[in-house]
């Protein structure tokens, strides 16, 4: 139970239930879709990119608590970041979820509120849930126009 609470922290449950920045964004100039066919999670990500600055970001979709909370927290942290900063953040976030070693305090600080996902490390099957929004962000920034599929 205690380690389950580490995975399903209050912040995650809250964002899973009441995702922030959820809805359409008509003025978006970057869009991408993400899909996890295994569990059916789907995300549409809308980004307003001004030069290389993420000015606004919203998402729509349905899925498990981990994928929804991750996308929600991602949108709250991205605004005002440069494209390069956003990509670097995903790399750090990905390391947090997949590294064999506990994250250092510096790393956790850099990740700010994303650190609540550190519990996912113990559930390798759920890493793709936690990264669906981020993979979709990369696709939006890359302008691939293809649906991102995590499996």
């Amino acid at each position, binding site marked *: *139970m205690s*380690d*389950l*609470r580490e*995975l*399903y922290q209050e912040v995650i*449950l809250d964002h899973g*239930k009441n995702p922030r920045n959820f809805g359409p964004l008509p003025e978006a100039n970057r869009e991408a879709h993400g899909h996890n066919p*295994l*569990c*059916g*999670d*789907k995300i549409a990500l809308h980004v307003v990119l001004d030069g290389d600055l993420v000015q606004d970001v919203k998402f729509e979709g*349905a*899925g*498990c*608590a*981990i994928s929804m909370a991750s996308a929600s927290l991602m949108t709250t942290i991205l605004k005002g970041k440069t494209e390069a900063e956003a990509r670097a953040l995903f790399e750090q976030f990905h390391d947090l979820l997949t590294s064999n070693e506990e994250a250092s305090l510096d790393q956790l600080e850099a990740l700010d509120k994303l650190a609540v996902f550190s519990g996912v490390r113990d*559930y390798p*099957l*759920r890493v793709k*849930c936690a990264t669906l929004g981020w993979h979709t962000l990369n696709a939006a920034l890359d302008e691939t126009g293809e649906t991102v599929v995590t499996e």
Partner: protein
Amino acid sequence: MSSAASINTPSFDIEAIRKDFPILAETMPGGKKLTFLDSAASAQKPQAVIDAMANVYGHEYANIHRGVYYLSQIATDHFEAARRKVQGFLGAAHDREIIFTRNATEAINLVAASWGRANLKEGDQVILSEMEHHANIVPWQLLREQTGIELVVAPIDDDGALIWEEFENCFTDRTKLVAMTHVSNALGTVTPIADIIRTAHDHGTLVLVDGSQAVPHIDVDVVALDADFYVFTGHKLYGPSGIGVLYGKEALLEAMPPYQGGGEMIATVTFEKTTYAELPHKFEAGTPNIVGAIGLGAAIDYLATIDRAAADAHEQALLAYTNEQLAGLNSVRIYGTAPQKVGLVSFAIDGAHPHDVGTILDHEGIAVRAGHHCAQPVMDRFGVPATTRASFGLHSDYDDVDTLVSGIKLVQEIFG
């Protein structure tokens, strides 16, 4: 909560059966006892199957139908004995009507590719049900791309049962095949397969039955049913993975062209012309899953030691108990409430995604399936992306259900 042991069905020695499955003694991470409720995905293996397979590899293994030496002869004997066990299990008239495949999926693909391409043309219709597994949908879609056939889908009602009048209305003078599951893997529904076959035959239409979820629960007699094709996979029947069965009526199989070319399926080969082997070898190109077939035969032998009527009574009592327990929980909905069901319960918990449910249950040592169960049209029918599915095996008992119910309460506590 009722105590487990006291209400186990008498005359069915569940404790003895549980001892036949060594994996049930395994401890899951966190020190939890294993509660295995995913037999519909793949059944666990009794020791008898494990031993039979280890014995072949350890003492009696060689390639079959090739060597002139002792080991090849006994491996061949065991392999062909397994075929006769499957024949007896299905009540088929001849062992040459039993084709070994990799799984049920390959068996259906074999029929679609071989019988389908030889017999169906543009505009011909194949009737499927709305509750088919993807394995009984996609091969027909591939055939549709190649030949221009049409697929007609017989709908199900809110309980997940076939709507009989709608099914009857699916038939036209262009209907050539009904491809229908015997038991739905996502809902547990048992279809009225005997009536389906009789009705199809009245319309001059052949029937392929996907029996993968049926054979672990229901005694099947393909001759009494008059099934034209009946397929199942070995790993859901307590046998190994990688072995499946196609039963086909001899006359149909005789007339069908080979599915794959290679060794084993030939009589003579020259670069000008090849003649094919007799049934069943015509459809078994290449070295088959020798030990898999023998393992499947051992699983059938194992099942023969069990009183199936008692096992069925136990399973139905367990299913009723599960329905009752879940009905006592708030905000749990069951998908698949047809009157005829096998021991399988698909459900959703309000406010908790099946994937999260699966993770939390796993934490309690409970193995369930969370997802679309390779039956996305069923999920669409009920308007859900996925469900959580608990499915029983021979070894399932009341403790398993009680543990599941506790796990669901934990989910509700976390997501409440």
